């Protein structure tokens, strides 16, 4: 009984790891490859989750939809809805560098969350949208296979992108923007493309998340869960390295879950609140990684030259 419980917990955990891995891969395209400091991950995560929820749930009286569309169409919808939103955000912030982009994107992510919080006709406000079923009547184990399938698909697409001439231009922009323009590349356009594609990958993660937890509310898209954890995963795993992005999601989620136990062991009188102590612990972890392994568990590697080392 003990073992069965443990396995069930592991399956639950790996589902979330897979969903976060997809979002980390999206962030890796923006930060790892292009150097865009997007700390508004939660915004695109929320857009994907809400779109999927509205498209696939049963008709409801109090909010938009649901439209009872099939699972895959819901995910396609998440990407299709996120695309123009990310495009507009990307266009507005196109001229902004690092720290300014960070401020702008965190603001936009909060705007999106507050929008879902206040527009009850669309999202049922604070009460959230319940009843988002897993597809094909699968349980956690079946859903894990679906999630892993999407992780593999996303990893393959992002890795091909990294090795392609497109990815080469992104790395050049990260290195030296003026020289990239002097090499005839339209820097603004490439930056926008990387931003939009990365955001759509995050929305895909959001869609998968909605089906897994079955109920979403604005609470799930606070910066801590939606953005901060994704960043810690990428930095811990190794930004610029797609394998590192996936590994980072696994390692950080395991540690994040174990901090729950750790925080439970310490007397509440000493730490005030358990959840605040968990954030503190994950902050300490981030510091340790930054000091001891600044490039992450798996540092960035040079993509192979064409014809050299098949994938």
């Amino acid at each position: 009984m003990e073992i069965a419980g443990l396995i069930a917990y592991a399956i639950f955990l790996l589902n979330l790891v897979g969903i976060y891995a997809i979002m980390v891969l999206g962030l890796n395209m923006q930060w790892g490859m292009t150097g865009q400091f997007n700390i508004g991950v939660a915004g695109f995560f929320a857009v994907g989750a809400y779109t999927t929820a509205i498209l696939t749930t049963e008709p409801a009286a109090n909010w938009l939809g649901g439209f009872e569309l099939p699972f895959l169409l819901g995910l396609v919808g998440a990407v299709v809805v996120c695309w123009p939103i990310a495009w507009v955000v990307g266009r507005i912030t196109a001229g902004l560098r690092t720290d300014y982009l960070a401020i702008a994107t965190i603001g936009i992510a909060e705007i999106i969350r507050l929008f879902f919080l206040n527009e009850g006709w669309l999202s049922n406000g604070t009460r959230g949208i319940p009843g988002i079923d897993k597809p094909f009547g699968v349980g956690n184990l079946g859903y894990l296979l679906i999630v892993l399938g999407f992780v593999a698909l996303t990893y393959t697409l992002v890795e091909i992108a990294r090795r392609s001439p497109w990815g080469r231009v992104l790395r050049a922009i990260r290195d030296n923007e003026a020289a990239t323009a002097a090499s005839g590349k339209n820097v603004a356009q490439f930056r926008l493309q990387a931003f939009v594609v990365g955001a759509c990958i995050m929305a895909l993660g959001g869609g998968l998340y909605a089906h897994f937890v079955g109920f979403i509310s604005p609470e799930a898209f606070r910066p801590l869960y939606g953005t901060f954890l994704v960043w810690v995963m990428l930095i811990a795993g190794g930004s610029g390295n797609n394998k590192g992005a996936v590994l980072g999601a696994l390692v950080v989620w395991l540690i994040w879950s174990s901090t729950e136990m750790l925080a439970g062991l310490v007397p509440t009188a000493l730490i005030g609140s358990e959840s605040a102590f968990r954030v503190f612990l994950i902050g300490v972890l981030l510091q340790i990684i930054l000091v001891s392994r600044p490039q992450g568990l798996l540092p960035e590697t040079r993509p192979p030259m064409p014809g050299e080392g098949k994938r």
Partner: protein
Amino acid sequence: MIEIDRISRAFGGLQAVQAVSFTVAEGSITGLIGPNGAGKTTLFNMIAGNLAPDQGRVRLQGEDITDLAPHERFHKGLVRTFQIPHEFSRMTVRENLMIVPAQQSGEYLLRSWLTWWRVVREDRAILEQADEVLDFLEIGHLRDELAGNLSGGQKKLLDLGRTMMTDAKAVLLDEPGAGVNRTLLGKLAEAIERLHQERGYTFCVIEHDMDLIARLCDPVMVMANGALIASGDMASLRDNAEVREAYLGTGVSGQAGGQSNGTA
């Protein structure tokens, strides 16, 4: 080839370039010299599109390019290098060259995803071209080195190599010889001469090394305080009193000569 028509630019109260006009003739290697702060690099930035002029127009082969972005001018065949080498330091020497060719189908993400085998085949051809350029510049042994690890002179060669990865018509070189040792400088001059003869590139070169200017350039334009003060071949400029004054300051007798060797 390049016509600069009464171009001006001020930074606050400083008039960096004031109503400068000249023409870089097709097939020439035109030199641009002058003391530090004369406005040479500002002028280059306006020709290449990195800086908008306050007034004046720039034309390339008769076409007005004043309002085009740098990458659009690149596609018209106008290529530049920078005074401080602008290499992609965390990319290899080969990748630094492979980035340059225009119209790579792999630069479209969808094509990279859907027809990746075709993209790889095309990229292999670009790789071969890059290796040829590296052999031409005799830095083939450095091809897998990160560009950030190269010496200053090798970076200058790499910059020149980048202009060889495209069908350039006119190339702007901003101090190609600065910080380059004598041996490498000879190689650099040789490469410029070969590009000029074999590929028919037109060059415009900013340089402080008068030996290099004398070897490569005819005509030579002289700038001081944001204005063009003289032009002609190097021999005639050496005897020009105004040029000597600009370089050496007023009150120096003619006996000092026009030589201003070395890098300033």
